[in-house]
């Protein structure tokens, strides 16, 4: 897990970026905090000896998804959110309960109370070749199903858009 100081610095940045993303009232700032968070997570992967996943994390999340977020925010001009509005106490109580439950589950699992499935394997091969073999030989069926689902989602969007356009034209 690298040097503890490296971990501490990365963890601090990641947590502050996450908090910043949630509390910022400006959508563009939120998106940028999210990018910072993704990049710290990518460095985590690098420290954990998984350079492939690290680079893919940056390319896909920071490079593609948040860029699309930004694009939509800029096009819609939705960068300024109205002042904080909440449904009163209920929302806070629910949020506190959910967080506490998640934290308990994580702590129990990681400290070894469960069946221990969350413990990382000691010598996991994370080289591009190993990941390729896993994806395209051992797990090729789930992989293809996933890509098929994404393809269907993409095509349905195009179909909806085409129908709408036809109605407007006709």
């Amino acid at each position: 897990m690298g040097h503890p100081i490296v971990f501490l610095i990365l963890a601090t940045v990641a947590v502050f970026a996450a908090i910043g993303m949630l509390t910022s009232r400006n959508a563009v700032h939120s998106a940028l905090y999210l990018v910072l968070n993704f990049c710290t997570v990518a460095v985590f992967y690098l420290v954990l000896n998984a350079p492939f996943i690290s680079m893919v994390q940056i390319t896909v999340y920071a490079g593609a998804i948040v860029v699309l977020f930004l694009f939509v925010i800029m096009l819609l001009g939705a960068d300024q959110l109205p002042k904080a509005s909440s449904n009163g106490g209920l929302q806070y109580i629910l949020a506190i309960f959910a967080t506490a439950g998640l934290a308990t589950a994580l702590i129990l699992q990681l400290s070894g109370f469960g069946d221990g499935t969350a413990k990382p394997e000691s010598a996991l091969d994370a080289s591009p070749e190993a990941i390729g073999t896993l994806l395209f030989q051992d797990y090729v069926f789930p992989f293809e199903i996933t890509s098929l689902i994404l393809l269907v989602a993409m095509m349905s969007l195009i179909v909806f858009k085409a129908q709408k356009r036809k109605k407007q034209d006709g």
Partner: protein
Amino acid sequence: MDWTLGTIALRALGVGFLMSFVVITGFAYTTLLERKLLARLQGRVGPERAGYIPLPRKGKKERKLLGGVLQPAADAVKLFFKEDRAPDMVDTVIYNIAPMLTVIPAVLILAVIPWAPTLLKSSPYPYFAIAPGLQVGVLFILAVASIAVYGVALAGWASNSKYAILGGIRATAQMISYELALSLTVLPSVMLAGSMNLNDIVVAQEGLWFFLIQPVATLIFIIGVFAELQRAPFDLLEAEQELSSGYNVEYGSMRFGMFFMAEYMKMISFSAIAAVLFFGGYRGPFVDQVPLLGILYLFGKIFLGLCLMIWVRASMPRLRYDQLMNFGWKILLPLAVLNFVVTAIGIVLHSEGILNLPLPG
């Protein structure tokens, strides 16, 4: 020398500092190269007043030798001493970091470029680069190229100006569109070399440079790079007539200069990537005997790449926005996918012994 973690870190710092210095100087002179070469292509002289050596001629005016060698320095001094002011309603933090966000990816890419075979006998790495230990160099380049869009997009948004934001949005759309084709043309080289390490790709080109096996990929890559760098004929995010120069319209002084710095540094780093992926990287005659020659060869190839970019800028008119999008999505992307599939099938047929193709390995 003993290669502990400390010496490795020191080495990376030293080499990084050296190469960044070389490239920053190189960037300054790339601007001069562009101005001189553009001028020559258009039948002008170009900058010639700053720093020339006067050669006296009989009966005529003196001849100016090396005219303009100090022009980049003069430009830099001018930019630094201009007043640095921002418009009233900008988003201050993002307005200030956006120029840096454009420069950082341009420099970061250089970390994985292999400049030469290993120079020191005792070095633990098989080649000379700032970060030679990274096995996924190709992915690193794609990752850095994919975050390069932030600087331009945020500069446009933070300036709080209609022209700037239109320029920024154009830039974002254009870079997202052409990145796909660009990434797909990087893959054939990876498949041919059987590795994502850039040095392995260079070594695999020992007999045959990949642009001879992959002419289509090379062509698409070069077009994609023009779009990614937003240079002519794809420079319509700074179309002067429509956008009064686009995302950088509200910037002044050295902040404005940094956008140009990023553009020229990216020209250098993408020329280096093209050289590594398709034109044999540091390979050339006698490079195995004298590793230092590798740096010279790579610089020579980068220089040729820069000249090509400037030549294209001088000779091609700017595309319209819909033409650009149609070209990227309907021609370049399918062509890149097709090329990728054909290459994959060819490699399999070759390794099964059915077809005998001139492939490495």
